């Protein structure tokens, strides 16, 4: 009952018969991306879930605490309700006592976004195999990244030292600033989450700086030039953009909502 009446001619040499060769038929890279780049993408996907878990934690904790319902102008710090970010993050280095809600963090965010732009330029220079340009733009990225981290350090230290007046805690003492157990600005979890999540993000920025430094050194030594491509810069670039993107979410959660 099977194929007896086939009149097909045999190929002259069966061994040159070719297997199928579509996009997903194997023997190629279906996403047109090397395995290294794919790995970076998948790592970032997984890292996104780590951050998502932290931000979910933030959302849930925020939800468990009361919101401030009074008038914006009359706001005072109290552990009874979640603070309004405008009143917590309102100082600027060198401008003591001036109320500038979110001005500093806006500047920080700008700097980080700039660093993403320079990163794009570094990757683009890599495509052109332009060693000098890669070096230049990597340096700029490093500079912006490091500036962002320093700003964060200032922001943390200001948060830790607190306002001039401090806040009267439940036990009657005046407390200034915040740490992981005490918080003048509101419920202790606000400070816990602030330190934890911005700290975790900062660690990512720091790792990014280490990777960028490596790329810079390798570029300067001509390692990538010899290799014939700057794919490493591209991979670190993916990571760097991801860290920037995460900051946008962190920023939204802590400062805007």
């Amino acid at each position, binding site marked *: *009952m*099977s*194929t*007896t009446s*086939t009149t*097909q001619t*045999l*190929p002259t*040499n*069966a*061994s*040159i*018969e*070719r*297997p*199928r*060769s*579509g996009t*997903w*038929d*194997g*023997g*190629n*890279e*279906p*996403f047109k991306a*090397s*395995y*290294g780049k*794919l*790995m970076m993408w*998948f*790592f970032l*996907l*997984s*890292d996104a*879930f*780590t951050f*998502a*878990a*932290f931000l979910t*934690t933030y959302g*849930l*904790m925020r939800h*468990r*605490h009361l919101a401030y319902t009074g008038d914006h102008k009359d706001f005072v710090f109290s552990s009874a309700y979640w603070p309004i970010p405008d009143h917590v993050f309102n100082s600027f280095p060198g401008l003591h006592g001036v109320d500038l809600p979110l001005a500093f963090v806006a500047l920080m965010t700008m700097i980080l976004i700039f660093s993403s732009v320079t990163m794009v330029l570094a990757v683009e220079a890599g495509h052109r195999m332009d060693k000098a340009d890669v070096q230049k733009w990597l340096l700029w990225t490093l500079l912006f990244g490091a500036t962002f981290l320093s700003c964060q350090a200032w922001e943390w230290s200001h948060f830790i030292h607190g306002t001039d007046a401090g806040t009267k805690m439940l036990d009657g003492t005046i407390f200034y600033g915040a740490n*992981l*157990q005490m918080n003048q600005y509101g*419920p*202790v*979890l606000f400070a*816990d989450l602030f330190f*934890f999540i911005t700290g*975790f993000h900062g660690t990512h920025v720091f790792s990014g700086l280490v990777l960028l430094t490596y790329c810079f050194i390798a570029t300067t030594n001509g390692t990538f030039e010899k290799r014939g491509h700057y794919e490493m810069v591209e991979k670190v670039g993916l990571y760097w953009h991801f860290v920037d993107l995460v900051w946008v979410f962190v920023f939204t959660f802590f400062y805007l909502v």
Partner: protein
Amino acid sequence: MAANLPTQSQVQGGIGVTESHTKHDEHLHHDEHHDQHWLFKYVFSQDHKVIAKQFLITGIFWAIIGGTLSSLFRLQLGWPESTFEWLSPFLGKWIEAGKLNPEFYLALVTMHGTIMVFFVLTAGLSGTFSNFLIPLQVGARDMASGFMNMLSYWFFFISSIIMFASLFLETGPASAGWTIYPPLSALPQAIPGSGLGMTLWLVSMALFIVSQLLGGVNYITTVINLRTRGMSMSKLPLTIWAFFLTAILGLLSFPVLFSAALLLIFDRSFGTSFFLSDIYIAGQALNHQGGSPILFQHLFWFLGHPEVYIVIMPAMGMVSEILATNSRKPVFGYRAMIGSLLGISLLSFVVWAHHMFVTGMNPFLGSVFMFLTLIIAVPSAVKTFNWLATLWRGNIRFTTAMLFSIGFVSLFISGGLTGIILGNAAIDIQMHNTYFVVAHFHLVMGSAAFFGLFAGVYHWFPKMFGRMMDEKLGYIHFWLTFIGVYLVFMPMHYVGIAGFPRRYYAWTGFDSFSQFADLNKFISAAAIFAFVGQFIFIFNFFYSIFRGRRATENPWNSTTLEWTTPVVPGHGNWPGEIPAVYRWPYDYSKPGAAEDFIPQNVPYSKTQSSNLPYERDME
């Protein structure tokens, strides 16, 4: 791509099909050194086959430890009145006046669960077979990154050392259950095991997660980028589909456990209050305010539920493969098998709260999760029916691997049915935290996944070590184990329905449970009997590595690519060209074919007598 080179390099299966090297091909080719230092050949090896064996042997080590721990606590449960003075040479101060220390009992349960779920059935199972089979079955010379693959093993190794060391601590290892719910796990004042033991547990698991991620990205990219010519996604063996989806599940769920572990570390060591609020210990109020222990449960089970499928899916894949091979029939419903794996993978992310029906959740949310949970029964049933239909009227060869695969199907059915019972929120109020749950997951996950593991070892042993395992010993091992696990876990359902709670050190204080004394004794005896039976396997395994009958290249007359390699493939897997693939992996007993199997690398032009009408175009 360059022009074809019509060389005649002979690949097993009779067909030498060659084409230009693909890029990764050349890239990996130079790895084929023969004069490597032994340290890099056997210890710090980047060869996926060596790494697979490292995972397997570490997994076997852990299984022995995990099994020993369970025998210890089953002694206590079976003979609560006896004295265990004879154990004090091994357990030292944990035997107090002839009695097992109750807190140590909790440590035993915790470590048993942790070791079995993560170190044996995750690392030992998927670490072994994903590593071994992915490159061999997709037709690659190695994993995408051999170096990261090696790191994956060594992270697992360090994680193992830390977890093992924690067994010997003065204050004992972690004792809060494998699910480590806070506040118990967060407060050293609560139980001694929440001191250094818990810290080491968390550090070890963090490293374990790193190992999983390094392995996972490798498995995924290898399947995507390194398939040989012709190996489309719809020609992949079901094993590869299962490993692929398992790796994706791990990639997306383990990071959430990582988050939970990190938050818990901060609560424990740096005074934060993420999971803690309003706690009094010994009349003393702790100053933790505002956190939520329920949040931990959500984060944990967001990993925890996908994790159970991370454990079972590789076993499902291997069983599908072994059932088809040894029934000499195409697997029934190949596409439905892939579809149901996809369905299970997706659903496994949206059912986690069925572990929390009674721990404080809005009942409305409970019914949503109940609905989603019960839907999982559909793809599970599809798989089960397909396995049975594959066996149906097959020309069955009862190899040891086949027996274990059939055993897997049996256990998966028995344990899956109770899942549907537990999935009903209203019934779960009675069943939660009883031995009914213990029975459920030990059948469907514990035993079934172990059966998958055994089936895999018996089936692929010839490719791993070039020798065969002993069949007679295999049969004895199978029957002892198969009867053993049913004797252990079936009675647990009854005990559980009666309300007997899990993780209780002694039940002698409750009159209502005293009628179960006999049953408990029986379960314990059966458990120890089944555990001891495993040493037959261990003997068989190590004996056969050195003394087993020599294997041929393709001892099971199988169709997949790993059987086209030499008896013991070297680094690089194929001495010549990598074979190309023309057909799906289940051409068994095809009408008109010369033999009852046609390997994937045989082109249609060579099999004109058996080609189906639509396949003639491909001749």
